[in-house]
């Protein structure tokens, strides 16, 4: 088996002072794949991506056990700018743009870290941004802001792009557009993607492989097409049985796991 692009080996992640959020997680992201992490609110998806990108440091969190390797190099608890230099770039949840700057200035700011500003690539995938390039980003729509966030990550020429809930709070049509762009980035630019989502349906559409994270642990993993067919996933994440109450579902799942 070829070695994966990213491998996370049994990590524990703790926020200051003693809040343990990830309790022994392992996962692999194969080169040239789209891998997704699904899970409900508070499962630890964001924490996992923060740990991989090193941004966890800014939140006074650290990896207290296990290791993370990228291209065979250990990266756990490294500075985020060092990790991004190796090719791991993180688009955090909630439209991480600079609202008080214009679109162009957003690009300039990130270009400071990378020397060049390859605006063409940004506008190629997100042509709407070009129309608004002089506009203050705070005035853009939510969808446009999310597009800019992904565009900013492109300036870093990522090998591995970490996307945290890009669909959050956006209309289905915009989500569709975004996902189309992500798929194209993967296919045309050869970017490997690790995608955290609550929107399991959308994520499993484009992913090759998926992990399901609950309460800081991985409870299920498999190829995307298998997960799409999995009874539990169908029921609890794809919402195909809306009459089942969340509580009953949880109870049912717990029972199932313990038996």
């Amino acid at each position, binding site marked *: 088996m070829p070695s994966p692009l990213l491998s996370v080996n049994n990590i524990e992640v703790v926020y200051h002072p003693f809040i343990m959020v990830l309790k022994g997680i392992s996962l692999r992201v194969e080169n040239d794949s789209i891998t997704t992490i699904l899970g409900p609110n508070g499962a630890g998806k964001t924490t996992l991506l923060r740990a991989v990108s090193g*941004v966890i440091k800014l939140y006074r969190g650290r990896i207290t056990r296990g290791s993370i390797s990228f291209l065979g190099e250990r990266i756990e608890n490294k500075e985020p700018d060092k990790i991004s230099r190796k090719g791991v*770039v*993180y688009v955090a949840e909630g439209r991480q*743009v600079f609202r008080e700057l214009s679109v162009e200035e957003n690009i300039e700011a990130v270009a*400071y870290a990378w020397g060049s500003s390859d605006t063409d690539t940004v506008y190629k995938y997100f042509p709407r941004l070009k129309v608004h390039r002089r506009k203050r980003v705070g005035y853009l729509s939510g969808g446009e802001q999310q597009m800019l966030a992904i565009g900013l990550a492109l300036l870093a020429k990522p090998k591995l792009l970490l996307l945290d809930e890009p669909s959050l709070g956006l209309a289905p049509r915009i989500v569709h557009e975004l996902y189309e762009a992500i798929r194209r980035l993967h296919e045309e630019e050869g970017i490997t993607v690790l995608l955290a989502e609550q929107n399991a349906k959308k994520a499993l559409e484009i992913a090759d492989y998926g992990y399901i994270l609950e309460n800081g642990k991985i409870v299920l993993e498999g190829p995307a097409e298998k997960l799409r067919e999995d009874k539990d996933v169908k029921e609890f994440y794809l919402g195909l049985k809306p009459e089942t109450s969340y509580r009953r579902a949880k109870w049912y799942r717990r029972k199932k796991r313990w038996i």
Partner: protein
Amino acid sequence: MVKESIVMGVLYSVLALGFNLVYRVSKSINLAHPEIALVAAYAALVASMQGLGFFLAALIASFIGFGIGILLERGVARPLLGRPPVALIAATLGVFYLLRGVAIEATGSYWSGGSLGDFGTVYRIGAVVFTGSDIAALAVALVALGLVIGIHRFTRLGVAMRAVAENPYGAAGYGLPVRRLTALSWGFAGLLGALGGLAFGLKAGVSPGIDSYVLKALAASLLAGLDSIAGIVVGGFVLSFTEQFGDYFLHNYLPGFGEVAAFIVMLVVLLLKPYGFFGTERIERL
């Protein structure tokens, strides 16, 4: 009086911008700022007394201010990251006394103060008369303001610093060196403190009370809004004109108004417009 308002307005702007740069990245007030100005002004005084010449003295002061700024970020702000702002305010108050103590010890017989040189000539611009030291002070202050505002406005570095100030978490994900840029903001703040202190020294001589002007400049920061850069000059001028003209019209009824005007301004701003007149009205779109 107009002249005094203009000169003081620019000087206050320089010093106030130092508070703002720190606030933007660390969301707290650097109470050591006045003592950075004091230490730098004394360094310039000692240097010029040793016959090093004005430019060298100014350079030394600048390096000291910039260096103290960086050290404060490293040694005080960074370890306190994620704590409530009060922690940083208290810690910088500690540094205030530390720096003052060091200044008293290190300057020895120079502590009583002195002049940074003779700029005797008188200049007339329209009806307003400037002394040579006013002009020297203005020049230093305008260079400091121009440099720091220019960098923020027109360079890639400056845009990156603005981005990091607004959203360090997002910036870190895209590979921006958040810690380095945060430290640089503190460094620029220290530089402004130093050059502001130097400018006061040029205008009125270096003295142990020079830091009290810097504290007053905090009123200009609040007027502008602590996170504003563009509003700072307006804040500085509103403060200086309030002081000068308030004192002129009120000194019969409220003797010493000029002395406390800054603090009254602070109080009023905090009560009526806590984000200042140019502070960000955050554009949120959820």
